[in-house]
């Protein structure tokens, strides 16, 4: 069965390491924060200028001057720092963030990503996504494997305007965990109950299937 949004977040959370500074994009990436293992310290960077994003405020502590990059009201954890947008993107561009998780419309076998524009539909703008994919060494893209019409989002070449060229090495879809190497997707793990054949049929770009493709393992939800 395809992973739920929560399961996708849970799988991504397995890639976290103690002491990681992490930038989580809007949508499924945001949910990753709910699955940080309890014996692990992770600090969340929000590109509007906050390192050490905390949970949402209460009705009493809500503050218009304290938001995240998704414009939601948030709090800061103990030990947080707050700075300008130039400083924030100095961190990001300079490669100081250990892991970036973001959504996408398409990814291709060259590691290119399209996530910000669908021509002739609304253009909302790239926000910080282009900086994030250019600045990070370690990026996980989360998205559904195929569109609702069944069209693959894992392509030979992205069809939409790019967010970044050749910068993505890891993709988690609702069907699989894949890594991008030498112009191909390597199928590393299957969602529980999903067959290699289904993944193959929904992957337009070159897919390499190793002899053994284990099912994803999930710890008990905490």
């Amino acid at each position, binding site marked *: 069965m395809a992973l739920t949004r929560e399961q996708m977040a849970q799988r991504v959370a397995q890639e976290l390491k103690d002491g990681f500074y992490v930038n989580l994009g809007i949508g499924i990436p945001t949910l990753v924060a709910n699955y940080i293992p309890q014996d692990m310290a992770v600090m969340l960077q929000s590109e509007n200028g906050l390192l050490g994003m905390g949970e949402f405020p209460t009705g009493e502590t809500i503050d218009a001057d304290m938001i995240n990059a998704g414009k939601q009201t948030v709090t800061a954890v103990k030990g947080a720092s707050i700075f300008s947008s130039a400083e924030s*993107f100095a961190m990001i561009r300079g490669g100081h963030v250990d892991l970036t998780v973001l959504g996408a419309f398409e990814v291709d076998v060259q590691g290119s990503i399209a996530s910000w524009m669908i021509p002739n539909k609304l253009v909302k*703008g*790239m*926000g*910080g996504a*282009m900086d994030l994919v250019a600045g990070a060494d370690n990026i996980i893209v989360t998205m559904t494997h195929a569109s609702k019409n069944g069209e693959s989002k894992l392509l030979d070449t992205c069809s939409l*305007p790019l967010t970044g060229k050749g910068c993505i090495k890891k993709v988690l879809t609702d069907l699989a965990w894949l890594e991008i190497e030498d112009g191909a997707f390597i199928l590393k793990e299957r969602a529980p109950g999903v067959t290699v054949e289904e993944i193959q049929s929904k992957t337009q770009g070159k897919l390499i299937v190793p002899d053994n493709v284990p099912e994803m393992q999930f710890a008990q939800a905490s």
Partner: protein
Amino acid sequence: MAGFDKVVSTYEEAMQGLEDGMTILAGGFGLCGIPENLIAEIQRKGTTGLTIVSNNCGVDGFGLGLLLEKKQVKKMISSYVGENALFEKQLLDGELEVELTPQGTLAEKMRAGGAGIPAFYTATGVGTPVAEGKEVRVFAGREYLLEEAITGEFAIVKGWKADRYGNVIYRHTAQNFNPLAATAGKITVVEVEEIVDVGELEPSQIHTPGIYVDRVVLGTFEKRIEKRTIKE
């Protein structure tokens, strides 16, 4: 002697000299830390043909959205323009030019503008539509784009506290683009919640030194929240 006293008493004085066709750099991210009263004053003034450099463009009926309503804006230089139906309409109708710029590049362009750096290289945007017409250059085996600095005739900034010399501090994440815009305006106007005595701000803790600031005005702020999110 006037000395370094930057305080003006009205919003009209604060925006004096703004003319049709000028470029304005605005602080703020979403609706957080926007110079809401300075924007309202520009709306009241009715100046048109403006180029606005701001990460976002407010929402319908608030923030920079007000200037869209009155068709005062010719061009927006922004990273993200969602959350604004009127914006979308003017864009599709061809009434509004938009130069979409990655957020980090936008921040750095303002900083560069204030810092006398005419241009810099960044990997952001290589191989994307942002790279169109820009020089690509390789440093240490990696491709980078040449991006040029941005300055404006005016910068409009929202601070938390300022002294009369124009030294400013910002509150929480309302800092965002404000200190960058402040450095790159030919005339930099800062509206604040509180004017404190000179000497009250700790010198090492000032976010925007007064040298960048031309006018300070005291305001009251609605501080509208775009996405009110509380713990369940």
